[in-house]
């Protein structure tokens, strides 16, 4: 079969808690066009898929044309690459198993791949970001939850059922803070947004020192970072304790994976050195000696939303091309 053209565009979709964004991306990772809508405008997932597929069609027709679209990649919380489903997401409104990839494929007539947010970020960093050229690395996502993805020998390690990477639900010791997953002491209860806030409250309660955090109306990880920058001792202590837990969890992780780098992403990682320095200190203290001083702990250099869209586009290139109309 002689073919004169290949399809040169893919669609990347980022399904996040607040906003769903979709973009048309070319082979070099240039975002040609993008648009979006609030995820929770649609309580019914069928309406959501309709809105998304119409949006993608409109965007395609106004730029490169539908016939140039090769495939679609999606990033979603609790997305499972192996099944193409969103599975029991505690944060999205649609419960149970949602075969999102199949639903969207049926509407668009194109191949659709779905993966969880950490996997898509790892793909994004590997293709266009600071993990470019790395074959073995770990990407950690510190946000409302704590997730991760391991790259093994140049590929995403998915695990037997696609659930690998649940670093947020590992434990440093028996007992500890209760977690939404039903267990106690999960790393997530210390290193996610909620965990950092709890640590802040604990520190404020156990100390009588003055702190900018005491009078702050909207205390959140971002404002705590601002207070750190202003030299607030207790605010610095919040991230020191967070980093201590994170560093130890990552040390255990790195001892079994032996990564070239650990890339921290997500809102909490924006605390920068206030988090990274104590994390690194605890990491080097606990990690096995033949890995010590060799693992690069770094933060992402890409803009968050752009990275997730690019990651989803990289995912799209990896699935087999399929078209209803061939």
């Amino acid at each position, binding site marked *: 079969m002689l073919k004169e053209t290949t399809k040169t565009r893919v669609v990347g979709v980022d399904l996040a808690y607040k906003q769903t964004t979709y973009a048309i991306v070319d082979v070099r990772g240039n975002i040609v066009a993008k648009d979006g809508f609030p995820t929770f405008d649609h309580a019914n997932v069928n309406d959501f898929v309709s809105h998304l597929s119409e949006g993608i069609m409109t965007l395609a027709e106004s730029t490169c044309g539908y016939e140039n679209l090769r495939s679609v990649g999606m990033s979603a919380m609790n997305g499972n690459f192996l099944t193409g489903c969103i599975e029991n997401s505690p944060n999205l409104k649609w419960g149970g198993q949602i075969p999102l990839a199949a639903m969207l494929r049926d509407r668009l007539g194109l191949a659709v791949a779905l993966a969880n947010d950490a996997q898509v970020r790892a793909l994004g960093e590997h293709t266009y970001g600071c993990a470019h050229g790395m074959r*073995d690395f770990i990407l950690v996502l510190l946000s409302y939850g704590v997730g991760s993805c391991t790259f093994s020998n140049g590929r995403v*390690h998915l695990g037997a059922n696609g659930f690998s990477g649940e670093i947020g639900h*590992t434990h440093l010791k028996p007992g500890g803070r209760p977690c939404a997953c039903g267990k106690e002491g999960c790393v997530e209860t210390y290193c996610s947004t909620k965990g950092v806030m709890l640590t802040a409250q604990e520190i404020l309660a156990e100390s009588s020192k003055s702190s900018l955090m005491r009078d702050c109306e909207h205390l959140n990880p971002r404002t705590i970072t601002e207070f750190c920058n202003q030299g607030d001792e207790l605010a610095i202590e919040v991230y020191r304790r967070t980093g201590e837990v994170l560093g130890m969890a990552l040390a255990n992780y790195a001892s*079994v*994976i032996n990564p070239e780098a650990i890339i921290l992403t997500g809102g909490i990682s924006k605390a920068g050195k206030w988090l990274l320095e104590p994390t690194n200190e605890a990491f080097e203290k606990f990690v*096995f000696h033949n890995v010590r001083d060799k693992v690069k702990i770094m933060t992402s250099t890409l803009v968050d939303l752009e990275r997730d869209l690019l990651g989803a586009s990289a995912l799209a290139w990896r699935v087999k091309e399929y078209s209803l109309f061939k």
Partner: protein
Amino acid sequence: MEDNIKSRVVGVDISVKRTTYAIVDVRGNIVAQDCFPTNDYPDVNEYISVLSEKILELTEANGGYDTIRSIGISAPSANFLTGCVENAANLPWKGIVPLAAMLRDRLGIAVGVANDAHVTALGEHAYGRAHGMKNFIIIALGHGIGSCIFSDGRAHLGYEGFAGEIGHTTYIPNGRECGCGQRGCMETYCAQKGIIITAKELLAESDKPSLMRNLAEINPRTIAECCEQGDELAVEVYRRTGEVLGFVLANYASIVDPEAIIFTGGIANAGHWLLDPACETFDKYVFRSIKGHVKFLLSSINNRERDVLGASALAWGIKEYSLFK
């Protein structure tokens, strides 16, 4: 067109006491096997000379050297990516020893080396419990604790080939002292020495009668024998050990999502005395989407054959090479 397809490999297992080497065919049948003491040769050059001579002798007596495709070696602290044994704590040769290159130069065929957990994983995948599995974890419980992850049908080696050091993940910060210089490594609770310490601690903190008090030597095997005779304190030793093991494996499984965890090594012989409490703690701590999906299995390969079989599987996985072509 080649009429002489080489149909056999040599598997070598270097352990602290003994070096075992065997000729293995494509189906994993051991055609011939022999061994010699490792510690007789503190000079590694001399050791390589002896090993290559012995391999030649064995192959000449069993079908000829030209039927041998390649050689696989299992050794402690070996790195598959470099072909070296790197700072092995228990072997007589110090520093970085380029074992694969040295043996290849003597024998003129391809040689691969890998650490014991990696080789065990290859053996179980080719001929044992993990046959047909794409994602699993091997846990080798012995003097130390090693592990190997299979990811999508291949061993995950990591950036520099050091992956799998589960024995040196921290269970309790500032806990028991470990040979690696850290404190509280899980190995100090679940490996041979750790179990003996736990047994002694238990005997000291309780004045209950126990068969362990009369043992000439307390070791994992004799403690397991006491368990079989219903000794409460001995059962408690493995219960505490299993609790630590289950906790650590739950964390491991939560990040790897394996189909199975396969146990090998001397301590695994304690069987259900160790694995029942390990399973219980595992279920308590593992992430819910993984709970109930991970099989705990004991290796099905004969202890004496596992390492040379694994080494033979390693030999098949490397590129063929011959000086004489």
